């Protein structure tokens, strides 16, 4: 398994504890509302979306929930690399197929119990349109019946409409930003773009933090 799956490989790591905290906060934040579909996005590439969504999906699965992780980045998705599965049949292929009949063929099991993955698939010429299609809406409806949690790893908000399209179709949006890297005004733009499409933002995850607190709390039980 890939080194990125810290929650699986190194469950006592402070990173794993951080991921589990996010999981708990998400669950608590929506006691009254719906939390089935969660979308992970960010402002720019490289802030840690795929890392966060893969580990978060694993964390939910470790809790006993039936989880599906969908790689919506049909341009440069790397979920299939993280879970070491093939990418010649994935979301892009599924969305031009008969979704209702054949969707199960595109869901891949992983080494982690209760966690399945739909990889991004072969790079299509029209990723944004595929996400905006009726087939996608139908797919999400079907998947919601079968899984406890569905996590969508999406492209960054700035520059592409894909994330904004997806934001209108799912319950909660998680924004990932990187300490020391993401400019604060770009993060503000990201928030504005999402609120403009009435997205339901669960909150922000700050990645790559370098606080002194890491030293105190990080290895409390480790």
């Amino acid at each position, binding site marked *: 398994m890939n080194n990125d799956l810290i929650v699986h490989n190194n469950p006592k790591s402070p990173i794993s504890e951080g991921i589990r905290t996010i999981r708990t906060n998400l669950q608590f934040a929506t006691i009254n509302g719906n939390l089935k579909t969660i979308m992970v996005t960010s402002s720019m590439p490289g802030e840690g979306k795929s890392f966060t969504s893969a580990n978060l999906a694993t964390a939910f699965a470790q809790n006993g929930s039936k989880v599906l992780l969908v790689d919506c980045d049909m341009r440069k998705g790397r979920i299939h690399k993280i879970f070491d599965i093939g990418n010649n049949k994935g979301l892009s292929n599924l969305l031009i197929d008969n979704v209702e009949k054949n969707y199960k063929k595109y869901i891949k099991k992983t080494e982690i119990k209760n966690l399945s993955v739909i990889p991004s698939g072969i790079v299509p010429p029209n990723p944004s349109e595929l996400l905006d299609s009726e087939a996608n809406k139908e797919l999400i409806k079907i998947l919601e019946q079968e899984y406890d949690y569905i996590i969508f790893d999406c492209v960054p908000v700035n520059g592409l409409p894909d994330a904004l399209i997806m934001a209108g179709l799912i319950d909660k949006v998680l924004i990932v930003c990187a300490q020391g890297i993401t400019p604060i005004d770009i993060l503000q733009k990201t928030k504005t773009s999402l609120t403009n499409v009435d997205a339901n933002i669960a909150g*922000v995850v700050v990645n790559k933090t370098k606080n002194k607190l890491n030293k105190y709390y990080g290895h409390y039980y480790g």
Partner: protein
Amino acid sequence: MEEINISELFDCIKEKVWIIIAALIISILTSIIYVKAIKKPIYKSSTTYILVSETEITGAEVTLNEKLIATYKEIIKSRTLIERVINNLNLTNVSPSSISSNIKVEQVSTSSMIRITVTNKDPLLAQQIAENIGEEFRKEIEDRYKMNNLGRLDAPLIETTPANASNSKEIILINGAALFISLMIIFVIYYFDTAVKSSEQVEEKINLAVIGSIPLIKEKEDK
């Protein structure tokens, strides 16, 4: 542009401490090179003269002496006297102003004593100029003003140790400047760094809940 958060500033300094270390290494090397290779020794030579009073000291006398000392200071550093010294010592390629700027005349505390201090690269020359200017000064007072009230107390010596032998001032200055400049650089970096600095900043400025943070840990199994 932004508020300045002191604890974030300290974190930034801690993170960028290598700038301070690099600056200090450069300044330490510079001070060593300066002290060993560049700094030139400077020698001083001092001589003192007393205003001798032939009559009893009264209040008026003391005030008069003060005024005299002020005048004597100017006389000692006058071009006339210095040109005589240059002649006496056969100094070539030396301008009166360069000699004059290296002569310090001061009243010793509140007494009726004058100290003449000459600074020069050459300890012998320092002593000779001090000796010469002192005596030319005394002659001038005797001849022109017909006053016999000057007595020499300390004759100038040829010093063996340079006056600037102590390096502490330069070392403190060079290293202090390095420290200050590096701190300024870090401060400017911090001030103009627009990246996300903390969860608190995100919550305050963007008004979104931070529902978690993932630390950056370089583990062996990590990517």
